[in-house]
């Protein structure tokens, strides 16, 4: 199996990715992990198991809420969706991330 340039996820960004993954629609845990992998063209490799502590932690913080529903393949699954506070948090974290990236970029490009 070709593993092109798998990059380990920088610390603390998992939350951001999760929040973004469910920004548009509720997803269950597996779907979130697939989505991150897929959309990053397989570059971002996360230990799948580490998703769940993060999900539960986000739920505890009140940024996402959960509910049980039937999945595409007719199985019972736990779906997560953004809460109002979560939406705000996502916006804030996007901003912070972009600021960080810009600053690092400047340092790299500068003399």
């Amino acid at each position: 199996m070709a593993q092109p340039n798998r990059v380990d996820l920088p610390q603390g960004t998992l939350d951001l990715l999760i929040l973004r993954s469910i920004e548009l629609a509720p997803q269950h845990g597996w779907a979130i992990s697939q989505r991150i992998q897929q959309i990053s063209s397989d570059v971002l490799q996360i230990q799948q198991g580490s998703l769940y502590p993060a999900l539960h932690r986000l739920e505890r913080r009140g940024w996402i809420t959960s509910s049980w529903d039937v999945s595409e393949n007719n199985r019972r699954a736990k779906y997560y969706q953004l809460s109002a506070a979560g939406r705000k948090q996502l916006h804030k974290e996007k901003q912070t991330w972009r600021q960080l990236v810009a600053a690092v970029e400047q340092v790299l490009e500068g003399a």
Partner: protein
Amino acid sequence: MLADLLFRIRSLFRPGRRERELEDELQFHLQNQTEKYRHMGLAPAEAARRARLDFGGMEQVREETRESHGISPLDTSIRDLRYSARVLRKNPAFATVAVLSLALGVGANTAIFQVIDAVRLRSLPVVAPRELVEIHVANMRGARGSQERDNALTYPIWEQLSQRPAGFSGIAAWSDESVNLSPSGEVREVSALWVSGGFFPLLGVQPALGRLFTPDDDVRGCGIPGAVISYSFWHSEFASDPSIIGRSISANSHSVEILGVTPSSFFGVNPGKTFEIALPVCSATTILGHDVLDDGTFWWLSLIGRLKPGWTLPHAAAQLEVVSPRVFRNSLPANYPQVSVKDYLRMKLTASFAPGGVSELGQQYSDALWMLLAIAGVVLLIACLNLANLLLARANAREREIALRLAIGASRSRLIRQLMSESLLLSSAGAAVGLALSYSLSRLMVSLLESPGNSVFLDLHTDWRVLAFTAGLAILTCLIFGLAPALRATRASAQEAFKGSARGLTASRERAGLRRALVVSQIAFSLVLLVCSLLFAGSLRKLLEVQTGFHKEGVLIADLRFARANPALVQAGNYQKRLLDQVGAIPGVLSVADTTVVPISGQTWSNAVWMAGHKPSAAAESYISRISPGYFRTFGTPFLAGRDFNDRDTATAPKAAIVNRAFAGRIAKSANPVGERFFVEATPSIPETEYEIVGVVANTKYRELREEFGPVVFLPLSQDPAPMLQDQLIIRAALPLAKLLPPVRRAIAEADPGAHFAFVNFRDVIDESLSRERLMATLSTGFGALAALLSAIGIYGMMSYMVARRQSEIGVRMALGANTGNIQRMVAGESGRLLMAGLAVGVPLSIAAAALARTLLYGFRPYDAVVLCIATALLTMVALMAAWLPARRAARLDPMRALRDE
């Protein structure tokens, strides 16, 4: 923040459901991932494996997810406890031994602490007890007169103080007394309190019913204003009848009206005693029948005061010292013996803190109780050492499991927490059972303190102090015997654990070292307790067997008080003789006599004496007693010279006296002082008198069994210049005492139908004087036996472990030709080494402990060789018995199996 809290609270309430949901969620993920791989063309098994790899450690994810819920600490703790409970259920023997030995240790400590608390530590249930002080004389030397209680003052002194000295917001006086409630016939005594008018207001006591005394009730010449009864007496005697106010009861044959009832928590200011009725001090004259208020030589009132806010104790005591000269000058009685006036005027008043009241019981038993607490503490320590050992053994057995868990990522602190939860469970169970046990134990202790005729009242309710003490003990035991094993077990590296098999002949000595140290400590402490119990039991035995100089068995004391109404009794001398003759005539009575002082009863009469021809300044103290003829025959005390009192010693004849050998030696300084004369210092009621010695008797104990024989002067009742209408008959009979009572009662009734009398067995008087020794002997022996048992269990456990650990070594030895005898000797040798080490530590500890308890011992030195030998022998026997079973097991090992076993 709020969402977080709500989440956590919700999670608390549905742990099972959460678990199931989490499982479903994770399984869903795995299934989907597996399916994905299968769609990519992998075989099902391979797909599943890949999916699991991608996922990561299942258990770890579960654990981390649980932790992210934020309920982890509580949740895991509960899980730990459940697991521990399961483990303990599987080992019922171990769990029972552990919990029981802990329970006994905790229970004993709590019970003794409860008693100490009730007697010494707890404040009185009154308003602001920390401000209360006891006012007494600092230097009572040379005080003359009748001393009814320790540290007591006379009424004239109290009168001088009732104009409050500066520094006190209030002063009150009180005393205790036995009052006879039955109008005639057999005496029915209850405890009574004399209280001054300001006593209840000073303490802030509110009545439960009716009213309590005020200063207006307590004025000179008050007659009998009324009485206040205690709550418990109201309940037991009158069934809490609300109409009790206004009814009358009989106190020493006087009719007294009941004014009120004190609250249920109030028992007076003397922990260890309670009261049934309280009477104002001014009515003592009427009720006791003689004028105590003007008597400056009757020392009966205890004073209690309350410090003014802002005043310190030294400051207030200084004030008392300032007013002392005036107080004693004005209160000096006219009839005070001239020689002692100087001492009286030099007396100084002082004050000491008394937030817990003034407990005679406390003062008498303080040393004993603290010693018992120390002993119980050592028992608990031994129990903990036992358990530490047992837990270490189990931790050792689970070495591999623990190493494995450490290797796959369990945090060390988590493992330690789990191991400690087992000891937490054990110690909590032990503490709970111990607390329950402590109730019965403390009641047992109180019953040991009591004696017929002297009941002890202690408010033994469980308050926060006791609970804190017990909880503290439980936590301490948990730490002591839980932490060390847990730390050790988790310290071992994985490699070592996997390598370590029973085959290792070079098995690490160090690991067994801690366990050995624990067993050696157990043995040492057990020796200390055994030595202590032998010393205390021995002291009791020696006191019971000590030469007293009189018969102890078969003697009945009849305490008589005659009705004042009968004028014929004025000729007391004649009357006494008639009564003695009549009682003496009863069939079965061997001898009867009369006395004013019953030996060993606590009654004391002493004065200064000096030989004729010597100066009064050379006077020495001597005990004194007044007796009738036949006293020495009744008590079985032999005469050494001279004669007994007889009919010739009438009121007009020369004053005669009989002295004992100690008097002859120390004061008369002659082997046979018959015919010599001596003087006795004047008392308030009797002038200085000269006596002639007519007889010498063997030494007898006077006040207590412990004392050395001291000089005693016996004077004849027939020459008593101030006879009291009171007698104490000493009756020695061949009958069982129960059969003796009816004819004696009849004889007394014939002499005076209205007389009050009470019977007490002389044996009981002696036993009561030994209640402290009996307490120490009984409890320390119980504890000593318990300690020995615990050590036996410890040694047994250690030996079993040793045999199991060295199985392969034993197998090799047997294969090489060792027989069962050799193997048994090897095991016995091991236990012998432990015993030696324990004894080496234990002997000096025992001597030190015995030295601390010196005041409680009798007839023993702290380093008594015989006692040490006996204790060592006992412990050796116990150790050998405990090692016998494992030794037998070792010798029975099949060498092939032993070598093959891992």
